[in-house]
């Protein structure tokens, strides 16, 4: 079911090569845009499409584009954020590795729309093999006349540069990414000024996620209205979901926004259900930073209606009973998973990845990791639970970039929904620290 926009040709043999990609209709969007559309015309279609940033924040892409400052004589830059590092998220890795030309084509169209003559794809350094795939695709596109000087006789010039990161989650934050691209440590910048005004090299810059940019070709070919007709309301279009954890079929799936969460988990078309003999216990729907939900809140809203895979439905109920679509990192936990251990694991991640610039995050993530560690290893006290909530609240909203929030939410939500599991660890340390021991309280399993 559902429309495929990005992964339609994923299974065509040789789709990673220019020739096969071209035969499947590749680069027709570049021809259409450069020969028949003005840059503003492309921006207009993307606005009409209503596509929201696919990296996690969900900010409307067309609006982001329209904020780009255009002072005379100052270069403008487009930077693609391919630093995919949010635990549970591996869709951009999959897309770039399998259909590199989809990103290259999207970069050409997006750069044209923004008036950028040099654009960058910032790829996390661990994916060096993907960088080589992208560089090959760029060379092929250049040889075919889709990059370089005076592309298709339009007078438009573009160079694409693939830039490797060095292993730092924080560089997925757009201003940290720009610092990193300038050859510095990935410390996020204060905003304002926003990148749209002062970004890369202090020039106006747009930073977009891989999946967002890759969608531009389809929008140009089919029109913004056609894109907006897919999905539900403000959640238009399709979304790549990275499904992992205790499901039968982990992988990357393209869904039309609006699929019921229950169907996504249990349908054979997608996750295929929980692995044999087990039951759904909890879910992280949008990457490690979004609130974790227990089974009984995942598939239904408070009013009993089914919860859908949309920005609005997943966040329905706020943080009390809802979560976020985020990056689409869909991590499924069955009853063998220990929420305390997982929360400690995520806390360690954020502590490790904090850039250290803001004290609430630098110190707070370390405290949370330590407190969670002692609960997990049988040395916690009841007071520790409130202490964790207190620390998480003091980090949230008090840092330059959202890493602080991203570190606070998993802890606060785990305690909100699984407090009895934390208490069990504290009151039954000898039992809880046995290998493989998991709380078996009266939690609702689905």
């Amino acid at each position: 079911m559902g429309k495929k926009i990005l992964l339609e040709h994923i299974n065509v043999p040789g789709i990673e090569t220019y020739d096969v990609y071209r035969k499947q209709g590749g680069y027709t969007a570049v021809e259409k845009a450069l020969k028949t559309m003005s840059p503003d015309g492309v921006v207009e279609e993307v606005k009409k499409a209503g596509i929201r940033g696919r990296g996690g924040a969900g900010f409307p892409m067309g609006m982001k584009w329209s904020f780009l400052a255009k002072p005379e004589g100052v270069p403008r830059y487009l930077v693609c954020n391919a630093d995919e590092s949010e635990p549970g998220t591996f869709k951009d890795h999959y897309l770039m590795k399998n259909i590199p030309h989809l990103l290259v084509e999207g970069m050409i169209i997006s750069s044209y729309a923004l008036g950028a003559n040099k654009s960058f794809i910032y790829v996390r350094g661990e994916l060096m093999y993907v960088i080589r795939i992208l560089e090959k695709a760029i060379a092929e596109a250049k040889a075919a006349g889709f990059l370089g000087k005076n592309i298709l006789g339009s007078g438009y010039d573009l160079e694409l540069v693939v830039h490797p990161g060095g292993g730092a989650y924080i560089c997925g934050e757009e201003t940290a990414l720009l610092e990193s691209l300038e050859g510095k440590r990935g410390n996020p910048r204060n905003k304002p000024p926003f990148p749209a005004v002062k970004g890369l090299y202090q020039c106006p810059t747009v930073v977009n996620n891989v999946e967002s940019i890759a969608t531009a070709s389809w929008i140009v070919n089919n029109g913004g209205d056609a894109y907006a007709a897919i999905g539900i309301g403000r959640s238009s279009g399709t979304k790549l979901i990275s499904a992992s954890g205790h499901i039968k079929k982990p992988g990357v799936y393209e869904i039309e926004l609006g699929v019921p969460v229950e169907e996504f988990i249990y349908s054979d078309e997608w996750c295929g259900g929980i692995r044999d003999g087990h039951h759904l216990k909890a879910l992280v729907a949008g990457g490690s930073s979004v609130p974790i939900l227990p089974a009984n809140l995942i598939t239904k809203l408070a009013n009993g209606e089914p919860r859908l895979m949309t920005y609005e439905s997943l966040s329905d109920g706020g943080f009390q009973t809802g979560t976020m679509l985020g990056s689409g990192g869909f991590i499924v936990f069955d009853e063998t998973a220990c929420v305390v251990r997982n929360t400690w694991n995520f806390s360690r991640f954020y502590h490790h990845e904090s850039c250290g610039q803001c004290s609430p995050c630098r110190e707070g993530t370390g405290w949370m990791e330590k407190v969670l560690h002692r609960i997990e290893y049988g040395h916690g006290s009841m007071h520790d639970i409130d202490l964790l909530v207190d620390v998480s609240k003091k980090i949230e909203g008090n840092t330059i970039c959202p890493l602080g929030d991203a570190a606070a939410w998993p802890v606060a939500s785990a305690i909100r929904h699984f407090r009895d599991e934390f208490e069990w660890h504290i009151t039954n340390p000898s039992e809880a620290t046995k290998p493989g021991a998991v709380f078996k309280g009266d939690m609702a399993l689905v």
Partner: protein
Amino acid sequence: MTETPTTVEFTPERLATAQEMIARYPQGRQKSALLPLLHLAQEQWGWLSPEVMDYVARMLEIQAIEVYEVATFYTMFHLDPVGKHVIEYCRTGPCCLMGGEEVYDYLKQKLGIQAGETTPDQKFTLKEVECLAACGMGPVFQIREKYYMHLTRERVDEIIDELSR
């Protein structure tokens, strides 16, 4: 085991690559080539000694401290000598759900080393890393550019035995 280089200079091929990398960035923004050059240097020498970092600084016409502060920030750079194969093992949540911790314990036991250590024969260095963006294929580790996925004890045996030869 990688060694402290006596002469610090890129091979002619890598020197050409380095110059091409620097030319990718706008004039006067050559510092942008720092991460690409550090990767290139690590590819040649296996790790980044102070001498190598100084060489990169000279090449980019920046202060040595500008290289040190970057090399120490990013986790992919090895600032001490490492073994022939550096195993970078993902320790993050989704891999752990798939049994990543048990496989990791087995790997440590098989190699006889802990995270951050190198085997006495200098063949393997073990490092713990955070999420490698391959969560649906976990447990995962990486050696240089290659991802090893769906790890099990048996798979670890195969990989280590193969690389030990």
